[in-house]
């Protein structure tokens, strides 16, 4: 392990992003030493350096209103940023090579995939072979889904978790991979981190369990190394047991919401 023991966390905000507060709250609850919420434009101006952090989070929201497709303009902002000093591409590749962590949630996940960071970071800033598009029913929907963790995927964030319930809140959550070779690679390398599942916890294509018609029922992807992870559902929205839609039907619940497990795994790894 090359990472320091600080868990210094950078959350990028602004430009239509909106989950910074609850994401920061989850980090603080899960062992972060320091959490900075930084406006994306300041980051793109080069005012904040990635190397001062161990954990980078791309949060949910509507980057530039998701016009031109979710997160598309933000991806361009990163690709064509005119900052002085070290390029963003370089900063990110050093960050990843140092086995530090990147998490993308919802809009942040769409961003990571479209920038090429997921599921194979070597493509970042250059090519893109996976994408996310409109839900098959063309509706934005807020609903809780059952998630099954792919036991063969080796990312850091879902360690020790086999099943998880989280809310999805998106209109463009359908993962699309059309290149057969790339499909094969994702499957062979087990880069799908979580599947949409039915009430029994079995992977399913059936709506609304799979809320968007995603390829292979994928809800989350990771890179091969396992330090980059992105998902459509919102773990930060399940930060307390009373977030669960059925909490009033359950007895003797621990205070934590299960979404915190994702964050705790991150800080356990970083500590």
């Amino acid at each position, binding site marked *: 392990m090359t990472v320091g023991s600080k868990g210094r966390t950078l959350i990028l905000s602004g430009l239509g992003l909106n989950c910074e507060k609850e994401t920061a709250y989850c980090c603080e609850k899960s062992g972060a030493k320091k959490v900075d919420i930084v*406006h994306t434009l300041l980051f793109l101006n080069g005012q904040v350096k990635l190397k001062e952090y161990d954990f980078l989070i791309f949060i949910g929201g509507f980057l530039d*209103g998701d016009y031109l497709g979710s997160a598309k303009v933000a991806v361009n902002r990163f690709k064509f940023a005119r900052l002085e000093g070290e390029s963003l591409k370089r900063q990110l590749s050093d960050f990843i090579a140092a086995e530090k962590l990147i998490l993308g949630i919802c809009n942040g996940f769409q961003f990571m995939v479209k920038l090429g960071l997921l599921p194979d970071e070597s493509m970042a800033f250059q090519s893109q072979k996976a994408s996310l598009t409109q839900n098959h029913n*063309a509706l934005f929907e*807020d609903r809780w889904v059952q998630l099954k963790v792919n036991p063969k995927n080796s990312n850091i964030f879902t360690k020790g978790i086999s099943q998880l319930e989280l809310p999805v809140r998106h209109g463009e959550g359908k993962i699309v991979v059309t290149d057969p070779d790339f499909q094969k690679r994702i499957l062979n390398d087990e880069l799908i981190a979580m599947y949409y599942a039915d009430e029994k916890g079995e992977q399913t294509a059936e709506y609304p369990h799979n809320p968007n018609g995603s390829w292979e029922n994928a809800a989350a992807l990771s890179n091969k190394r396992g330090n980059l992870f992105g998902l459509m559902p919102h773990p930060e929205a399940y930060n307390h047991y009373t977030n669960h*839609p059925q909490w009033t039907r359950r007895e003797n619940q621990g205070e934590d919401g299960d979404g915190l497990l994702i964050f705790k795994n991150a800080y356990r790894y970083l500590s």
Partner: protein
Amino acid sequence: MAGDDHEKQQETSLGELINRRIEIILKEGLDDPEGQKALRIFHQSGFAEISEIRSLQAYRLQSPLIESKEHLHSLAQDLFVDPVLNDCLAEGFFGDDRDFDWYVEITYKPGVTDNASRVARENLGLLMPDDFSARARVLAARGFFIKGAIDLQSITEATGKLLMNPLIQKGEIISKDRWPDERERLLSIPTPSGDERIEVKEMDCSGVDSIMKLSRERTLALSVSEAQTIHQWFADPQRRKRRKEKGLPENASDIELEALAQTWSEHCKHKIFNAEIHYIDENGKSSKITSLYKSLIQKATRDIQKTLGDRDWCLSVFKDNAGVIRFNEDYSVAFKVETHNSPSALDPYGGALTGIVGVNRDAFGTGMGAELVANTDVFCFGPPDYDQPLPERLFHPKRVFEGVRLGVEHGGNHSGVPTINGSVVFDECFLGKPLVFCGSLSVMPAQHRGQPGEDKLANPGDLAVMVGGRIGKDGIHGATFSSEELGESSPVSAVQIGDPITQKKMFDFLWEAKNQNLYSCITDNGAGGLSSSVGEMAEFTNGCKIDLGQAPLKYEGLQPWEILISEAQERMTVSVSPLKIAEFLALSRLMDVESTVVGEFTDTGLFECFFNGKLVASLEMDFLHDGLPRMRLEAEWKAPAEELDPPELPSKMGETLKSILGRPDICSKEKLIRQYDHEVKGGSVIKPLVGVKRDAPADAGVIRPVLDLMMGLAVSNGICPKYSQIDCYHMAACAIDEAIRNIISVGGSLDQIAGLDNFCWPDPVLSDKTPDGKYKLAQLVRACEAVYDYCVGFGVPLISGKDSMKNDSVLEGKKISILPTLLFSAVGVIKDVRNCVTSDFKAAGDLIYLVGETFDELGASEYYRQLGKSNGAVPKVNLTKAKARYRLMETAIQNKWIRSCHDCSDGGLAVALAESAFGGRLGVRLEIKPALDTSGLREDLFLFSESQSRFVISIAPKDREAFERHFKDDPIFLLGETDDSGQFKIQSGQIDLIDEKIQDLFDAWRSTLG
């Protein structure tokens, strides 16, 4: 910087340019949900002949900086194309090689806020020199390739009705045959038509008639007595002399007249609520009311505050953009609900969208600024299945519904604010104007720099700074237009589209500016535009100067008066000390938000405007704000006859229940609710949908607004315009009781519930147009009396409110007026959210009780409306009993005896039972004989009566004794228990009244709105 040039176009520098075009289409083989959705809409509207629709995204461009087709192609590839999803053409048409019958392309008309085009231009700017935005025009377009044998007239009609709103959008329709000749049309970028001559005009104020003529021509909504006041004011020889000396016209300038009209509008000044009313009650007794607002609404709060004494938790009421209450020592909560009815009638999408983003500015701009935590929305529409012809200018209620839904989806979701609660009401009276209520809650630190966070103060010498979007001709005359009925001549300029992303960026900046203490006062730019925002802040210092030439414009060609009163969205006004202005503007630039100094606050007692260095308006502050004459109005109440004439006893009560469950007001709204983000911000505790399958209705939304704390806020709404058909006093009482009951139902306490009143009325002023004005005003008097009686009685202070008094439409000679409507919104502080309860039955074997008495109160009930019956008694709230019961419920919930709690409202006991059963997916087995006998009612009346202050609750059998002892002084009725049978079985004296499968009832409840 891209944002600096928001929609700014500099015609002169563009010269002769090539019209360019990028087309983006989904790759063959990929699903096209947008196209499929359009196809579904066509089919649902009877266009069965359409067989396929494929969607396309296009961008029309002009810029000297785009050098060639190749350059454009590479820009498109780099910036617009998703290589996995899209194919792209630069300067070509996919239509050239496609099989289709019709191509339809939709764009926003010039001057309308167009977010897709703005973002596309910013996106191109990423690979262009810094001045690109100023030297480029970009128009985003949505295209559809349509296959099907349909003629030009039908496709034109369908496009106008189903795919766009012709008021603000333009559609190009081209057939395959004409394609080669007509496709060039798809390249044009129309420009906004600004005025060529910019000038300040003198207005003829020589007589009342001339002012009234101006009022009609300019949508000023002035009354004769207001015109008289204005005439006299400008006729004063001393004043004329002074004005002449200052270089002002002796008569009013157009700027002054417009500023007066906006400030004096019903929308801004609430003239009817402040009028002197001569009221005759049902006994012919006559009395004088000096101001409904002061003598009843405001007084209710003052009286409660007096009673609370030291424990008063109202921090700021009726003065700021929103009311503020204490949450705990560290935080305060602001709450505001606004209506956006008139704009929503013209464009449901834009009207609702601007409703949400507008009320968010209110809640954000309260005190020194507050963070948004929740939205709540309530809509009133015409019946979704309405099948009679409608006047040309009106949309079908279904279309209104969909437009409003989408507007709130974009407004709420894109603002990152959860929509935690809402309600939809249907009635034919809302065909003319829908009601769109948008509410917003925010949280602020209790202290800001050692001062209460709800306080603010602009100082003389502070600069007036406009932050956010630019000014255009959109949103001219919103305040005055909404102060009139909707008619053929309603101004199209009142329609606007909002931009929640620009607004979010502005909020991010202002929050940072607040934390750095860079401004002294803040308010929203809403109705009346700069005229109102600067004008109202100027009351702190007693004066202001506005330089209209400094205000940033979307495009050239705005008259100075338009700059002053435009309600263009996404703008706030702040006052900034000259010492801090540099820092403020630098931070603004850094965060890509436009801020402009537009004036200065003074203590001259004058509201002054300058244009090109010349004084063009100078009005005394006290005349502007307090000069308008008080209205004198007549009201006369006629008490309704409440005939108790029951219908025939239905032979199949189960079928009756099913038909009531399927009524639009009662049926499942899941599809609508799911399209709103109801849990962003991470503090969701009770969502709008609850139960095993998360599809049963919750009574109130509950959130943890501060994630570190277990304290919560419960938010609910009470609304029942149908009872206005009988008596508005009880309509208002029922709305108040419903809102409070819902808060109690989830675990709130009468200790701290605050209310908001939103009155939406048909014009209640006696005139030729409104011969029944006296009665309608008496209805308002009655409703206000109920608000006073019940708010004081329950100890629920009103902290903010709003009224919209002209909800009539006169189109094609037909007048449609709404039923008088009070929306009562409530927010309750929850001490510990972990003790909250939901409406779903929890386990088989639990005991089900009805809490509260049932009376023969079926007037305007869902049951009677289903039968088309118009008589009966309206439900009446027994304040003493209700209050005692709510206190008992609070303790019972805190003691954790109550496992489920659902309020009985529309549809009565039977509907409440069914909904709780849906939530738990549990059967029920009930014997109602004892309860029925106590009520003395017939079975159907008992099951469907809408008597107020009642709950359906369930408890575990082990708690029976404690629970019953607790309620020994209040009527509760054990009805039976839950079971696993899957049946909904109600007996009376062991005779089956209803025996239906839960699933069948559920299907009936679900089918109406899908």
